[in-house]
């Protein structure tokens, strides 16, 4: 396709000869409008900085949470130790009787 005699190459060679008679100078007032818009843009407030980083922070926190649950899954699902039974005097009394 990039052969000099391919239709596309012939077409682009011809297209490059098309004159562009449009002015390249900035339209009247263009620079003033741009500079005015730049000047009217508010500086980045602390709130905006917080907003920018909050979502990223939230995603990291969720990832840590999921990792913590996965890491401790076996502990969470294990049968709880029956500590109360041995510490319960009534239960002990009933067992003795």
């Amino acid at each position: 396709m990039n052969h000099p005699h391919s239709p596309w190459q012939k077409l682009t060679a011809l297209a490059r000869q098309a004159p562009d008679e449009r002015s390249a100078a900035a339209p009247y007032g263009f620079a003033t409008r741009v500079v005015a818009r730049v000047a009217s843009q508010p500086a980045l407030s602390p709130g905006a900085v917080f907003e920018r980083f909050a979502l990223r922070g939230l995603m990291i926190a969720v990832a840590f949470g999921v990792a913590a649950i996965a890491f401790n899954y076996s502990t969470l699902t294990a049968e709880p130790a029956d500590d109360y039974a041995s510490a319960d005097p009534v239960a002990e009394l009933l067992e003795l009787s």
Partner: protein
Amino acid sequence: MDPAEAVFDVAACLERVRQNDQASARALVEHLYPMVIRIVRSHLPRRVAEEDLAQDIFLKMFTRLEQYQGAVPFPHWVSRIAVTTCIDQLRAQKRRPEFRWADLSENEAKVLDAVMTDERDPRPGDALAAHELVHKLLGQLKSDDQLVIRLLDLEQKTIAEISALTGWNQTLVKVRAFRARRKLQKLFQELQSKEHA
């Protein structure tokens, strides 16, 4: 070089812009406008006014001015902003519907016929029709592929220059050019078969 361009001291102007000198900011915009508008015009996505796109580019330039470290000449840095802004605009727009022979003007059809059949050499007067035709054909490509082909075949930039302008590595530029040319070849074949059908 234009004498006005030769005397324009970009570094000094930038220094004044950084000190919030609005007159210097306006001078900088006026100095860079011809370069920016040339980039915008060669990549202008449909339905986007060139002035609006140029304005977006200059706003980005001023917003990111603190990031400019002077590693490359300032106009080069701005041209990269211009190209990436055009890429974003191209990506945001949908591709054109299927390209059909019936959609071509009489002149465009003649030019297309001339380049495909070799029966007559295109005339210099056909350049405008060829230009329109090229843009219609490029509209059938993915936005990134369009950009590569425009830079490569219309602006005759090298792979290294395209890589520097777009930030894409040279292999990616070559792959996109290859893919785009294959798609264009297929388009020509389809048009040829439809024309003779």
